[in-house]
C-alpha cells in the first residue's frame, strides 16, 4: 500500500512542476512585459521601467527567474494582486471555503441521487425507470449549466419567488466567519433565520453545479453495476441464499464502487470548471467568480496564483482518491 502510494506520488510530483512551469510561462507569454502589464494603460517612463524590471528580477535569465519563482512558491508566496495589493494566497484562502461549501453540497446532491438512481436502473435494466434515468442523465450531461442556472433563477426566484438570486446569505444577517462555511457559521451565530437564509442561497447553485456530476455518476454507477451484476461472485452470493439487499447493496456495490470512486474523483476538476460558471451566475463569492473577475480586471498575478492553486488542489484530491481506490480495492492494497 505504501509503495502504491509512493508510486502515485512519483507520477504526481513532476506533473506539479509542470504545472508551476505553465503558471510561470503564462505570465511571460502575455503581450508586453510584466511591468508594463502592471502599469496598465497609464504607462511609465523608461527609467522607471528598467528600475522596476530590475527590482522584480525580470532582467535576469529566464531560468533564474523560474528558480526564483519556485523559491517564492516554496515560501508560500503566490504573488500579489495588482488590484487589491493583497497576497494572492490570502485572497484565495478567504474565498476558498465558499467554493468548497458549494462544491461539497453539489457533490452530496450528485452522489445522493446519482448512486441510487444508477443502482436501481442497473438492477431493472430495460425497464421504464431505467430508460427515464438514462435519458435524464444524458440530458443532464448535455446541459449548458450556465443556462440551466438562469432557467432555475427565472423559475424559482422570478416566478415562485422562493430563493434569492445571488450571494451566500441575506444582508440582514451579519456574523464573523468562523469556519468559512456559511451553513455552519449561520448556525453558530445563533441568529434566527440565518441558517435557512444560508440554505436558500445555497440550494440553487448547488443543484446547478451538481447537475453534471449527478449525470456522470448515475451513468457510471449503472454501467459498473451492470458489469458487476453479471459476475460469477454475484451469482455465488445469490446461491448462498442472501437477500437482494445484501447481494446488491453489499456484494455488488462494493465492487461497483471501485470505478465509481475514480469517476467521483475526476468530478473535482469538473466542479471547479463548473464553479466558474455557477459562481458567476449566482454572484457566489468563491474562487470561480474571483478567477473570472481577475481575468477581466487583468489581475494577472491573481490569475497565475489561482491557476496554480486550483491545479494543485485538483491534483491533491485526485491523489487522495487514488488512495481511497487502493483502500477499497484489496487487489491493489496487497500488491506489494
Amino acid at each position, binding site marked *: 500500500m505504501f509503495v502504491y502510494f509512493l508510486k502515485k506520488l512519483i507520477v504526481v510530483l513532476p506533473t506539479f512542476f*509542470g504545472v508551476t512551469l505553465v503558471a510561470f510561462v503564462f505570465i511571460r507569454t502575455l503581450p508586453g512585459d510584466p511591468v508594463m502589464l502592471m502599469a496598465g494603460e497609464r504607462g511609465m517612463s523608461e527609467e522607471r521601467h528598467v528600475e522596476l524590471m530590475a527590482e522584480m528580477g525580470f532582467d535576469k535569465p529566464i531560468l533564474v527567474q523560474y528558480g526564483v519563482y519556485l523559491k517564492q512558491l516554496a515560501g508560500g508566496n503566490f504573488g500579489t494582486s495588482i488590484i487589491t495589493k493583497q497576497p494572492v494566497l490570502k485572497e484565495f484562502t478567504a474565498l476558498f471555503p465558499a467554493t468548497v461549501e458549494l462544491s461539497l453540497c453539489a457533490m452530496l446532491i450528485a452522489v445522493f441521487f446519482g448512486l441510487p438512481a444508477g443502482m436501481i436502473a442497473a438492477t431493472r435494466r430495460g425497464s421504464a425507470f431505467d430508460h427515464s434515468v438514462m435519458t435524464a442523465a444524458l440530458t443532464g450531461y448535455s*446541459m*449548458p449549466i450556465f*443556462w440551466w442556472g*438562469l432557467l432555475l433563477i427565472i423559475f424559482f426566484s422570478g416566478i415562485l419567488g422562493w430563493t434569492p438570486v445571488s450571494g451566500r446569505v441575506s444582508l440582514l444577517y451579519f456574523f464573523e466567519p468562523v469556519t468559512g462555511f456559511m451553513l455552519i457559521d449561520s448556525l453558530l451565530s445563533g441568529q434566527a433565520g440565518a441558517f435557512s437564509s444560508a440554505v436558500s442561497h445555497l440550494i440553487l447553485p448547488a443543484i446547478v453545479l451538481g447537475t453534471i456530476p449527478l449525470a456522470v455518476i448515475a451513468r457510471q454507477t449503472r454501467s459498473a453495476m451492470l458489469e458487476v451484476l453479471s459476475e460469477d461472485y454475484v451469482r455465488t452470493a445469490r446461491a448462498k441464499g442472501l437477500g437482494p439487499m445484501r447481494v446488491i447493496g453489499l456484494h455488488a456495490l462494493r465492487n461497483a464502487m471501485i470505478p465509481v470512486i475514480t469517476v467521483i474523483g475526476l468530478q473535482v476538476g469538473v466542479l471547479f470548471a463548473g464553479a466558474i460558471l455557477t459562481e458567476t451566475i449566482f454572484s457566489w463569492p468563491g474562487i470561480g467568480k474571483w478567477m473570472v473577475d481577475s481575468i477581466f480586471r487583468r489581475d494577472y498575478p491573481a490569475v497565475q496564483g489561482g*491557476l496554480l492553486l486550483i491545479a494543485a488542489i485538483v491534483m491533491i484530491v485526485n491523489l487522495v482518491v487514488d488512495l481511497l481506490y487502493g483502500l477499497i480495492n484489496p487487489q491493489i492494497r496487497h500488491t506489494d
Partner: protein
Amino acid sequence: MSEISIQEVVDNRPTGFRAVLSEFWSYFSENRGAVVGLIFFIGVVLIAVFADFIAPHAPNQQYREALLQPPFWQAGGDIKFPLGTDAIGRDMLSRLIHGSQYSLFIGCIVVSLSLAAGVILGLLAGFFRGRVDTFIMRIMDIVLAFPSLLLALVLVAVLGPSLINAMIAIAIVQQPHYVRLTRAAVMTEMTKDYVTAARVIGIRSLRLMFVTILPNCMAPLIVQAALSFSTAILDAAALGFLGMGAQPPTPEWGTMLAEAREFILRAWWVVTFPGVAILTTVLAINMMGDGLRDALDPKLKRS
C-alpha cells in the same frame, strides 16, 4: 483407418465496405435514441447550411419598433418574429438559425484540431514508447491537471478573446484525451501478430504507424470525436457566455445568452431559446455518440 474429409465452408456473407456499413447500421439502429439523435443532428446541419434561405430575417437586422417583443403566441407577439426579438430588436429565430452555423463550425474545427494533434502525439507515444512516451504523456498529465474550462479561459485571456482563440484553447484542452486513447489503442495493437508480420516484411515505421496500425484504432477515436464535438460546443458557449468567446454581435448561442442575462426576469424568451438550442444540439450529438459507442466498441459487441 478412418478417412478425413475436409468440407469447405463457404462464407457467403457480403464483404467489403458496404457490409461493414450495414453491420454498423444494424448495431447503431438498435439504439433508438441514437437514431433520433442522428436525425436531429442532420436537421441542425441542414438548418446551418441553408440558414440564409430559412431565416426570416438577417441575424443582425435591428427592428427599432419591436424591442423585446415576446414570441407570437403570447400577448403582444407577432408572427413576423415567431420567437420574439431581443433587446435591440433582432429576430430571435433568425439569430438562432444562424447560430447553428457557429456551433457546428466550432465543433468541426475543435475536433479536427484536437483529433489531428492528439492522434499524432498518441501514435508517437504508443509506437516509440520510452522517453518519447514519457515526455508526451507528462505534458498531457500537466494539461489534464487543470480544470478544462479554467485552462481554456486562461488561454483565451493570454491569446485575447475571440471565437478563433476560444476554439484553439478548447482544442488544446481536449487533445490529451485523444492522445491517451490513441496511445492505449496503439499499445494493444502493437502486440498483435499482424503488426509483427508487417515489421518482419520490413515496412517503414511511418507507414506502419499510419497505414497499418492507425485504422485499427479508429473505433474509440470516432466515439471520442462525437463526444468532444458536443463538449466543444458546450465549452465554446460557456466561453461566449463569460465574454471570452465569440464577441457580440455574433449570433453565437452562448454569446446571445450573455447579452440576454440582464433581461432574465423581464423577457424569458431571450434566455430560454438559445439555451434550448444548445441543449438539444448537444443532447442529440451525445445520443449519437452513445449509439456510435455501442456499434463500434468491440468490447461490447455481441458476437
